[in-house]
């Protein structure tokens, strides 16, 4: 019986103390942060169904600060995610400076400041194709000086299936130029479609044909 009385009393006391907290001066939290390495348009971040569009910085390389207009109250949850990736880039939440853990989803009030950072990288795509007619070892393909190399192994005698190869991925907007860095013993290989500027998909038509020297 006693507990019946105690419970409402407690609830009243709680309500009173909350009101004493200031009522209208309730702590509010802004969901904000910054986006680094954003280069291209059309990044959209979302929190609890509200979306904001993030434009690239006026000065290339600057971080882009953002803040959601809707303020959160103590105990409200937030979950900031990428609703749409920018063109040619992929952005992911990253730990705040000095932190170890990604903090894009939490409850307001656990931290003094809600500071959610996103980091963007330029999308990369593979370049490659097929190698036909290779009968000897020694073929090395290269994409310039920093794009990596591909050393082909001679297929077992009698195999005529083309070898499918790929070089290291190339970032959107970057040029590539595949050359025969070393010819196979006793053969000469030529490359078709060797050069280009990376777009938004893998390139798989850089085909190599080898014939007897």
């Amino acid at each position: 019986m006693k507990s019946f009385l105690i419970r409402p009393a407690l609830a009243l006391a709680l309500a009173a103390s909350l009101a004493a907290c200031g009522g209208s001066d309730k702590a509010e939290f802004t969901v904000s942060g910054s986006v680094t390495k954003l280069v291209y348009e059309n990044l959209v971040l979302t929190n609890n169904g509200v979306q904001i569009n993030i434009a690239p910085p006026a000065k290339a390389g600057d971080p882009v600060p953002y803040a959601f207009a809707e303020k959160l109250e103590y105990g409200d949850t937030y979950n900031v995610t990428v609703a749409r990736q920018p063109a040619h880039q992929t952005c992911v939440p990253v730990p705040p400076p000095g932190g170890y853990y990604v903090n894009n989803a939490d409850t307001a009030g656990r931290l003094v400041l809600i500071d959610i950072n996103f980091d963007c990288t330029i999308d990369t795509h593979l370049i490659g194709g097929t190698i036909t007619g290779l009968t000897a070892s020694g073929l090395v393909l290269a994409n310039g000086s920093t794009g990596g190399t591909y050393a082909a192994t001679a297929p077992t005698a009698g195999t005529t299936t083309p070898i499918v190869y790929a070089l290291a991925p190339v970032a959107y907007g970057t040029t590539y130029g595949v050359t025969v860095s070393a010819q196979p013993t006793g053969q000469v290989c030529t490359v078709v479609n060797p050069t280009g500027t990376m777009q938004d998909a893998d390139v798989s038509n850089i085909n190599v044909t080898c014939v007897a020297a």
Partner: protein
Amino acid sequence: MKSSYLRASAALACAALLSACGGDDGQLLLGGQISGVTKPGMILTNNGGSDYEIPVPANGTGVTTFYFPNLISSDDKYNVQVKSVPSNIVPDSCQLVNNSGRAGFNVTTIQIACEYQTQALTGTISGLKNELVLINGSDRQTIPAGATTFAMARVAQDAPYGISILANPAGQSCTIANGIGTMGAADVNNVVVTCAP
């Protein structure tokens, strides 16, 4: 009696397991990412010992993830340093980030970036009447009409180079001689681009 045999063999098995792991009884990885490994000779140390030579990655980019074969234990202090670098790396040029601390969990965030010794890659052009775009992989150089020489970005020693034409000049077609090779310890200045008509 049986149990003592069992114990002894268990201890042996245990010892065998441990030595297979490299002699340490830790269970945490120690590693990260390193750039500048296109040939053998990149040796890292942890706390002045545990010498580990980074295997050269097969794709020729010189960038690889690495983990010391010796595992470390929780709460171990670690301090990773570069003991020696391959001959194509500028001595004392390696920048290390997150390379020391105390292990709480697998350590995977060490970043080591080493600078290659580089050489110039240049040549001559004849007959160029309009703009020409030359590339060496991701390096793109726009050569203006009338130019008689050109320079590509410097190339790391031991790296391959392959100069290609990305865009021929309007109304012309160009060919390249001596545009493919592997950079040695001296500048390359004999690339010849000939444009016609």
